[in-house]
């Protein structure tokens, strides 16, 4: 029941602030229930059996029996870290959101609703339920951008919803085809993930389905060239919206990719390994170089997400135990580092009135605490050892070297480009002589500090000793690759 409890808390965190119709009460209710859902997810972690590599904490109830659709939840080593991440970011974004003065009770409800949908995606074993949660996420995020966003919020929110919806539609088509194929082969209607895994699909159709599914998820990750909705959405989204967008929405794509097409069509995945790896490498470099050219700190961080999420695709393409572990760990690592960077950019905008790097300069003089966090977050972003991103990236690199030999060597120099855009931005915005045209109002306040501190400490702690999460992820990867007959 613990998984439903997590969802229930997030649901209460959505509905009660709305019912309260009071900004202050809504805020505290949202924080309180986000905290409860985090506690519940940590409890799930505590009772999780590390020696069991299959699905655990399973819950199943019939929902639409006529179509074989059920309310079926479970977690394993791949999904539980992401569930914890979701609850954590629900809390962090609600805490951080307290700074944004004109936010009202609806805002906090929308944050928790987004997390509700995302957590559902990570838990659902019924693919119809998976799809429902998947779509649930879009709606609050659309409103977060469209109501609380920046000057071009209409354009950005519309682009976000249309673009990612195209991905969703193609994905649900693939699910329906699987549904009918199962009906044909076994005479039973089902949308259950575990049932679909038993299907035998002839290679030609499998390739088509594989491409459809991968496309659907690649839009969400996002992978070049399907990424342009992301910077637009981020630049206009409120900070807490960006936190969730970068922290967990992108992970839905990565999780879907690792979970669905790789399980159903492992042989096809092997056939497509090289093209996928090349797309991943292009994403990694393209994102890094495009980030270097940005003037808005937020779109820089958004494009850096494209670059970092490229490692997830690379790991999925390599399909060795180490590569999958790295990809899954990278999702968690990026899920803490990128929100942290977005919070930094948000606070900067709040205090200095601008996020445009050429208009900044020497911010460290006036906001020393902010500057320490900004430098630390940037260093975590560039994958410095003793941060979780390093563990993730080097694990992916090991896996891709195992799978691709020389091709993998082309990925390594990305570390220079990544350091390049982050430090180049730091040099212009944070260091140097103070730009006297700037009017800066104070340093970080307590709420901002608290939200950032949680994320930073987690990033460093998992970089110093990654085993609390890495063990379960790696056990899953080894088991999974063994299952699909790899290595």
């Amino acid at each position, binding site marked *: 029941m613990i998984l439903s409890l997590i969802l229930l808390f997030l649901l209460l965190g959505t509905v009660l602030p709305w019912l309260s119709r009071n900004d202050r009460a809504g805020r505290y209710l949202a924080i309180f229930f986000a905290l409860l859902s985090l506690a519940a997810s940590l409890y799930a972690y505590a009772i999780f059996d590390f020696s069991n590599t299959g699905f655990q904490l399973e819950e199943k109830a019939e929902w639409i029996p006529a179509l074989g659709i059920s309310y079926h939840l479970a977690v394993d080593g791949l999904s539980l870290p992401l569930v914890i991440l979701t609850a954590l970011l629900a809390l962090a974004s609600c805490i951080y959101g307290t700074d944004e003065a004109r936010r009202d009770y609806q805002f906090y409800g929308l944050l928790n609703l987004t997390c509700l949908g995302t957590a559902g995606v990570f838990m659902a074993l019924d693919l119809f339920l998976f799809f429902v949660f998947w779509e649930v996420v879009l709606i609050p995020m659309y409103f977060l951008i469209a109501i609380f966003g920046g000057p071009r919020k209409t354009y950005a929110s519309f682009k976000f919803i249309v673009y990612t919806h195209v991905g969703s539609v193609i994905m649900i088509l693939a699910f329906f085809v699987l549904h009918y194929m199962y009906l044909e082969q076994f005479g039973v209607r089902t949308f259950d993930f575990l049932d679909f895994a038993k299907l035998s699909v002839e290679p030609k159709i499998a390739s088509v389905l594989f491409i459809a599914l991968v496309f659907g998820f690649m839009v969400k990750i996002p992978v070049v060239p399907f990424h342009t909705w992301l910077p637009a959405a981020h630049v206009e989204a409120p900070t807490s919206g960006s936190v969730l967008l970068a922290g967990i929405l992108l992970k839905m794509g990565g999780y879907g990719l690792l979970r669905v097409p790789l399980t159903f069509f492992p042989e096809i995945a092997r056939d497509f390994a090289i093209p996928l790896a090349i797309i991943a490498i292009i994403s990694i470099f393209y994102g890094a170089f*495009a980030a270097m050219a940005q003037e808005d700190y937020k779109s820089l961080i958004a494009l850096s997400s494209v670059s970092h999420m490229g490692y997830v695709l690379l790991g999925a393409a390599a399909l060795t135990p180490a590569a999958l*572990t790295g990809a899954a760990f990278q999702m968690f690592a990026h899920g803490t580092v990128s929100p942290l960077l977005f919070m930094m950019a948000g606070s900067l905008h709040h205090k200095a009135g601008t996020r445009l790097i050429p208009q900044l300069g020497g911010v460290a003089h006036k906001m020393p605490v902010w500057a320490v966090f900004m430098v630390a977050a940037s260093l975590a972003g560039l994958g*410095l050892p003793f941060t979780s991103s390093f563990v993730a990236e080097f694990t992916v690199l090991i896996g891709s070297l195992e799978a691709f030999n020389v091709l993998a060597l082309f990925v*390594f120099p990305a570390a220079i480009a990544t350091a*390049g855009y982050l430090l180049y931005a730091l*040099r212009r915005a944070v260091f140097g002589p103070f730009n006297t045209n700037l009017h800066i109002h104070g340093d970080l306040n307590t709420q901002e500090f608290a939200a950032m501190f949680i994320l930073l400490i987690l990033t460093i702690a998992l970089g110093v000793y990654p085993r609390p999460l890495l063990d379960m992820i790696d056990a899953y*990867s080894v088991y999974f690759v063994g299952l699909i007959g790899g290595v």
Partner: protein
Amino acid sequence: MIEYSWLIPIMPVFGFIICLIGGYRVRMGYGQVAIFFMFLSFLISLGSFLDVLAGKTYHASITWAIVGGKEIEFGVLIDSLSGIMVLVVSLLILLIHIYSMGYMVPFIRTNQLSRYFAEMQLFSVGMLGLVIADNLLLMFMFWEIVGLCSYLLIGYFYRKPEAARAAMKAFLVTRAGDVMFLIGIIVLFVYAGTFSLTELFELAPEMDLTILTFAAVMIFGGAVGKSAQFPLHVWLPDAMEGPTTVSALIHAATMVKAGVYLVARNYPLFVLSPDAMTTVAYIGGFTALFAASMALVMVDIKKVIAYSTISQLGYMFLALGAGSIFAGMFHLMNHAFFKALLFLAAGSVINACMTNDIREMGGLRKVMPVTALTMLAGSLALSGIPPFSGFFSKDEVILSAFQRGDMVLTFFGIAAAALTAFYTFRVWFMAFVGDYRGREHPKENPKIMTSVLTILAIFATITGFIKWWFEGYMHHFIETYPHEVLERAEHIGTIQPHLIPNEGLMVATVVIAATSITIAYLGYVKKVFDPASIRNPLRPIHAMLYDKYYMDYLFEEIFGGRIGLYWARATGWIDKYIVDGIVDGIGKTTMYAGGGLRRIQTGNIQIYLSIVVVGLIAILLYFEVV
């Protein structure tokens, strides 16, 4: 005490946290905290070293991560090599922390001192951890931490745009080396299945030679970046933007030595591959001469010493590549002391004259006697004049090249020695002899600084005499390598366990160095000839040296500007106008098409239903056919 050696890098962690957290409340007092924790580290290092002398070694590890089902062990390895290295490093860090208490005082008003000590403590964590790590991955992780601290401390005066720029340059250029290092260790992990040094040494003889050579050369690539060897040396002279104590500690005595130590630590891998050894020797030898030539013309006292550091690091690689780990490590330790001394003495001079430009110094011998004398000891050591320490170790380095029978390397060594003696004394004479040319009123610095200078000067004078003991110590260490490694290395002749003294060579190098000093004396003190008059006919060469062989231009303008930024701007443009343009184009087309299709949206439910039915039939038919 050796079983507590894992505490050595842990101690400064406490200092780091205290300085970091307290940093925004109180301004002074953090130096004492940092020194206290460093002193504890030093004591444990000393105790561990005494245990090593008694014949003990220590190796313990824990499982840090499980990746792809393979366990990655992290631990501590104290043997003869890391035992003495950790002692030298912790002593130098301690001394420079003490010196900082005097040197950093003028900066308290503008920059919080706690930030300085926090960063210095973090650096100590990284450097000490790197030395005692038992594992290539752990070494790499600490390696990056020291790189980070180098970045932070070069940019300590972050208000200065040059400092911010130099910090970024240092990080990016060394990162190019770090990427190679990471490639090297991941290749080793994929092929040998472990990061552990001792296990790799056991497995190395069975590995494919091509892969081993590739991995070794890549690891050396990391050393080239960190130790500022050609062609990745361009960051080190710019790094002089940091406080002089930082230059002394990080950019002379310890961090830049990490590259040399890395090669020495992985020596069993290198000696199995003749190609890797040759690469190390030639990069080192060439850099020794190349950097010394640029030191000839610099007028910034710190830049002269910086190029000198690059050149001396080249000597160490030359010795390692030529097959003598003893000569390389011996020069490393001697150089650590006398170069730290030179930097701190330079810092003392800079503090007094408020400038880095040696043209605005002169005659300081009278007002700053302690600084002058101690710097003289350092300069003599650097020039290789007996009985100062540099003489002994430089002699061994050149001997190792000579004994290998490689005349090119020997030439690099001797020619660089000639230049070294000249530029070293050019600086000393210009600063301390003659008349004062600046506008300040220089005076000797406080005791806390000069006493550190004195301690280091004593080291620079006497450490050469440990040569006979140290040769045996290192020889004993080599014997601990796996039997197969030693046998193969001796068979292919990549290792020289014994260096046979060669008096002729020794006398020749001393005479050459002494001649160089005499020329500098005649030119800069006696004014027998005017150095400027020589410069004029050689203007193109002088310009080339002064512009650092245009290498900085290449890195900043071509790699950084043209390739990096222009490429980034091109990508940004493509992203905005082409990739996103197509997306928006499709969006608009759909909207127009939607406008057209609106006409069939009649509100007539029968038409809708019939379209749905037709569509459904089409889909079902498709699947029947398939």
